[in-house]
């Protein structure tokens, strides 16, 4: 199983982040440069953890800056599992 960037953006919308902000995101640009903030980042990480049943350790989660980073990390974990 692999996921796409669109799976991550769908999760972001489910957390209550403004859909217009999500739809305008560039997938390879840090989220904090596109209108998201330090409160949104852990919310997204926790939602991704719950959706895919994976553990984003704090050290790893803090390294995930873009939508593509999240998708790539999830795929890496899913392929290992």
């Amino acid at each position, binding site marked *: 199983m692999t996921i796409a960037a669109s799976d991550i953006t769908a999760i972001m919308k489910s957390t209550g982040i403004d859909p217009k902000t999500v739809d305008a995101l560039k997938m390879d640009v840090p989220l904090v440069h596109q209108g998201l903030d*330090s*409160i949104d980042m*852990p*919310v997204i*990480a*926790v939602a991704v953890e719950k959706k895919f049943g994976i553990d984003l350790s*704090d*050290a790893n989660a803090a390294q995930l800056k873009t939508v593509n980073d999240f998708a790539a990390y999830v795929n890496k974990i899913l392929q290992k599992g």
Partner: protein
Amino acid sequence: MKINHEIPVEAGQKFQVDAFKEVDAPGIANLFYTVYGADYPFETYYIPEKIIAENRCGNLHSVVARTPGGDIIAHGAIFRSSAPCPNLYELGQYIVLKPYRDSFAAYKINQYIAETLVKAVNPEGLFGEAVCNHTTTQKAAALIGMKDMALEVALMPSETYRKEKNGAEDRVSCLIQFMSCHDKPLTVFVPPAYREEAEFVFADPDFRRTLLDSVVPLPPDVTSNYTTTSFPFAGVVRTNVATAGRDISAIIDEVECEAAANGMEVLQFFLNLAMPWSGKLVDIFRDRGYFSGGYIPRWFDTDAILMQKNRTAPNFENIALYSSRAKSIKAFVQSDWTQSEKRRGITSP
């Protein structure tokens, strides 16, 4: 013994968020010293024995982010502060070591407090005072279900936040937010001047309120019951008026006189809205140049209204707010301030 030097903590460690254990106290004191130096205004947080004592007696319930070696890299808490209701706690004392600011420690502490600590402590409610030089704290509180209630205008001196580089040029306002844990039906005697504001904030389903217009005069046979606390580092004088009688004008005179003598910037009166004469009481404050900050649920166990006055004209333009509800509250407050200035014969530039 008071901590007066920094003990370095290694960056990049794993950590776990947990309720306070007494062994954490020196690490908490080190955390406060490392982040604030010797400048944090509450000495308790530098003294491990006091941190333990406050946690033991229930005045403070700390939550920490603890490394496997026992270092404390972040702290948050609920604690008894200004509210006369002993089971209404303030949410705050969030502090994170700089190398861990990119971690999710503060977020996890926030979640732990809302999901685990609240069940263990069982408070009536929580309130927070979120700074308004940025919206991050307000948003974090909203995330755990806290509702915007009132605005403390130009509450804190800008120097407090200069290190944060968050653009605090003027004094910083604070938004009072509230989480109801055990609501109960209450009758609120609403000052007619602030009926619209009361209907707005108490329309939330978290609150079961009966709003009655308060029009009766102050009783002749009641003596005021109040407490006043000064916060010299902030230039704030806060008075809780549990009961007010006809001696209230003399009490206001006394508080104002002492505040002026000490160069205080902000006067706050929290008035108990369980008094059927609260409308006439509020009129006394309005006649003296005070304006409303909003309603605070359960402050006295019953609800309160905040009446406030600033020595220097506040700058409403620099108040950053996250939610539309908070922006509506600000509109009420700013409009009332403008009217209060007109009543005093002062025209805005």
